[in-house]
């Protein structure tokens, strides 16, 4: 295969990176891990003239708890860094598990959360769990910084609200009162498979009563989506298997999957039913897993 030519820049600071992005215009792309971008370039699905590497921006790899803000994950944190983070393992094991089921070990050592989000692949594994947990994105450009809920970020397959001169620097899981969360990926092989359906949930339980619930679905719509009607069926109600089944059915009608080589629309809808039910049960019973 052939990787076409491009110019390469490796700025030493965030300011330089933003300045370069502004200067080089829409022909420039940010290079994070490159695991998706470089393949798209080999397939000529993208042809950036300039790649701006964020590799030297060490501050973007950190995973910290910031008091009053929440868990802050730098956009250059790799999937394995997320998976192995003791902070995340303690607070949101569900996020670690989602990262652990991405692609394969080699890709997890290179691919970043920033890339996984900005590429806006409908089947990406990390957006659903972060949407369920109400995560916020920090977007930076020469004009300053803005914050946007992840849920509102995507506009279509491969499309987002990221401005051409903007960088995603981090993702924040704000403090919240969820008692449990999980992400279940359903792929057609145990490793190295894209999700046919990905279901993430976050729930706040008070004994058996659901006080809050968020259900985020991947690979069943042009963008990762919330199943809000299904969520509403949960809130304020005592949890029974019957209810979870109904919630699953509701989610399966809310989503908007396509048929492709990995699965038909009909199959995907039914898998949304199955995994919504299973994910809710898991998060209700086992916490953040």
């Amino acid at each position: 295969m052939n990787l076409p030519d491009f110019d390469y820049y490796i700025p030493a600071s965030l300011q330089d990176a933003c300045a370069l992005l502004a200067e080089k215009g829409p022909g420039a792309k940010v290079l994070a891990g490159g695991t998706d971008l470089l393949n798209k370039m080999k397939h000529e699905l993208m042809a950036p003239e300039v790649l701006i590497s964020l590799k030297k921006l060490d501050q973007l790899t950190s995973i910290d708890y910031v008091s009053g803000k929440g868990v802050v994950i730098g956009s250059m944190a790799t999937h394995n860094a997320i998976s192995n983070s003791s902070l995340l393992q303690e607070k949101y094991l569900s996020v670690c598990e989602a990262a652990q089921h991405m692609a394969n070990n080699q890709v997890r050592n290179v691919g970043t959360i920033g890339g996984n989000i900005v590429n806006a692949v409908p089947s990406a594994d990390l957006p659903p769990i972060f949407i369920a947990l109400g995560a916020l994105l920090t977007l930076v450009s020469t004009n300053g910084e803005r914050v946007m809920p992840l849920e509102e970020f995507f506009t279509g397959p491969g499309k987002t609200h990221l401005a051409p001169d903007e960088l995603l620097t981090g993702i924040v899981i704000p403090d919240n009162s969820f008692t449990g969360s999980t992400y279940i990926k359903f792929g057609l092989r145990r490793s190295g498979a894209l999700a046919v359906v990905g279901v993430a949930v976050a729930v706040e339980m008070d004994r058996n009563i659901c006080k809050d619930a968020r259900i985020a679905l991947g690979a069943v719509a042009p963008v990762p989506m919330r199943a809000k009607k299904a969520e509403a069926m949960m809130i304020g109600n005592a949890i029974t298997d019957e209810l979870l089944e109904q919630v699953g059915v509701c989610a399966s009608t809310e989503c908007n999957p396509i048929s492709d080589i990995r699965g038909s629309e009909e199959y995907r809808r039914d898998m949304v039913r199955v995994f919504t039910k299973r994910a809710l049960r898991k998060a209700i019973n086992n916490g953040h897993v």
Partner: protein
Amino acid sequence: MSDNYTQIGKSVPRIDAFEKVTGQAKYTADIKFSNMLVGKLLLSPHAHARIISIDTSEAEKLPGVKAVITHKDVPSKRYGLSPARWDENIFCIDKVRYIGDKVAAVAAIDEETVYKALKLIKVDYEVLPAVFDAFEAMKEGAPQIFEEYPGNINTEIHQNFGDLDQAFKDAYYVRTDRYDGQRTYQCPLEPHATIAYWEGSKVTVYSSIQSVHYLQYYLSQVLDLKMGDVRVLKTYIGGGFGGKMDPSGLDFGAVILAKKTGRPVKMWFDREDMFFNNRGRHPQFMNITTGVTKEGKILGVHADFVMDGGAYTGLGIASAYYAGALLTILYDFENYKFDMLRVVTNLPGCGAQRGHGQPQPRYAFESHLDNIAEHLGIDPLEMRIINARKPGTLTVQGFRVDSYGLKEAMEKAREISGWRDKKGKLPQGRGIGMGNGGFVSGAGYAIYRTDLPHSVATIKVTDDGTSAILYTGAVEIGQGSDTVLCQMAAEAMGYRYEDMKIVAADTDLAAHDLGAYASRQTLMSGAAVKQAGEDVNKKILDTAAEIMGVSNEELDCRDGIVFVKSNPEITKTFAEVARTYFVKNGQLIGRGSYKPPKLGGVHKGSAVGTSPAYSAATQVAEVVIDEETGEIEVIEAWDVHDCGYVINPALLHGQVHGAFYMGMGEAIWEEVLFDKNGKLMNGNLAEYRLPTALDMPPVASELVDTVDPNAPWGVKEVGEGATTPTMGCISNAVYDAIGVRVKSLPFTYEKIWRAIKEKK
């Protein structure tokens, strides 16, 4: 008996292990020559189109491009691996027949320039209607892909043995089932590469090829060269599984580009190119009818198949014959009808993949037998036992089967898998199934008509006798042939494996052999090697007899020591005797040659399916199915193989593991997909899903003892036979788990989900 052997029957480490585990092993793409160019093929973007014109001028102008060739620059003689249907050109002349068909080739100074040049070749096409389905292709009015195949029918087979009508009349129960197979690919991890360079009138070709002989033969035929002017060799090969049998566009392209530029040229396939060029497994559409007695004895079988051959024939005519020929080996029945239509379509050509034409028919037949057993209320394993072929019998077509341990394999598999406690007794969603298989141990006839021996071997003992070099044309593609042939040579010589070296698969330096296909090398190359070793052994004993002043009948040689049989204390080393031989007579050389005896019946196509010896195998697998999602997990597998005497048990079990793995992949995950325009949709290793380490269950591999009288030390094959039971075995396990039959391969999660849903 094996107690007497010192070099065989042992799991010695592979002869190439150190090179492979350290990264020193050079595969074709790893080799560089000075001044070497690199090249690639231009492939067709259309499934069926007339070539109006090709303009290479822009590509030729690109700096760094050294040659661009099209059909105008190459001989127009047609070729194909099987000479029965030569229907392929080096580059398409009048029209292209599938997306990926070969149109032109470029050689340039580096890879980037090659890719740029390919884009600059302008081909003007007139797009023609295309057909992608075998049944559509046979309909009246369908696009005609070849003039010589009216109705797109490439091969038509009708064989009839015994009296099937009477058998079905006599039967207590006659049943027909239809099963469909899919297109799969071999996917060796090493993509194919070729390097060619010329010295005067002679060309040397390094190729990732399973048979250096056939490549030499076809290069010389198509390019009109003397065979002696074509040297073909391979270094290390990263797997083949049938995908590296056919001469490819890389081989022809590299040879012609090297001639044109006067420089060495390396050509290679990207992974997607492998799917276009590798001649994967034919999808077969199989109606199978069987009549049985009340007790389950098979009276007759009708196999009525259609196979999608894709655009060209290659070895496909043999695949078509194999599909029916081997169905009669496992179970003994006297009435058999085999009908087959091989149809051409506008998809990449199909060929031989591990097990050749047989795994899909075995899947159909093994599933069908379980259906019959269920109807009769008989345990499916017990029903197969009463039908199992006995040693020393003839099949209905006249194939002689001498050693045969299928019954014993089933009995052992029943025991080690806990069959009796599990079959029909596992909880819903969990199931156990069995399937049988086996294969030829080498084909009785070469691919093209020839009276040449199938295998030749030469052993040269070095001057001082401290090592010996085996020269063989057998091709090591990962299966371990270099290792087992050296073990065999050492055993026959009375020598030590550790002191063996090997020069293999080089048409100049090594000896003639037909190569690695049809599971032939252990038996056939082995037979030649054994004879060569015995030739050395005789010379050693004769020389030792002179030195030691005894008759040669009184001597024996083992493990590098010559000794007097009646008094083993009296010895000479092999090395000192060999040195004496060298001083007196010159080089100590042993020669061996093997050609199978005349085999088979007299019917049309009777050459396919013949073999000196047939392996047999039983597999049992246990599966768990998530009944809400259809996700299937194979949790354990058992294989019992009758593969005759075993030269290297560790390598043998490795073949079984890999064969089960490939069969499991084909049963559950693997399928090449095309869109409605014939465009390949999953020509990569993300969407063409080979099972990963997380998908593979433990496999118990066991043996039954047989010794085949027609083989050196009684050896038989293992590598292909062990993949033939797997799909049927998993099919039957799925049925046991969910009570509904999925009637087409692969058993994807969605198909299982749908089958369960439809049952409800």
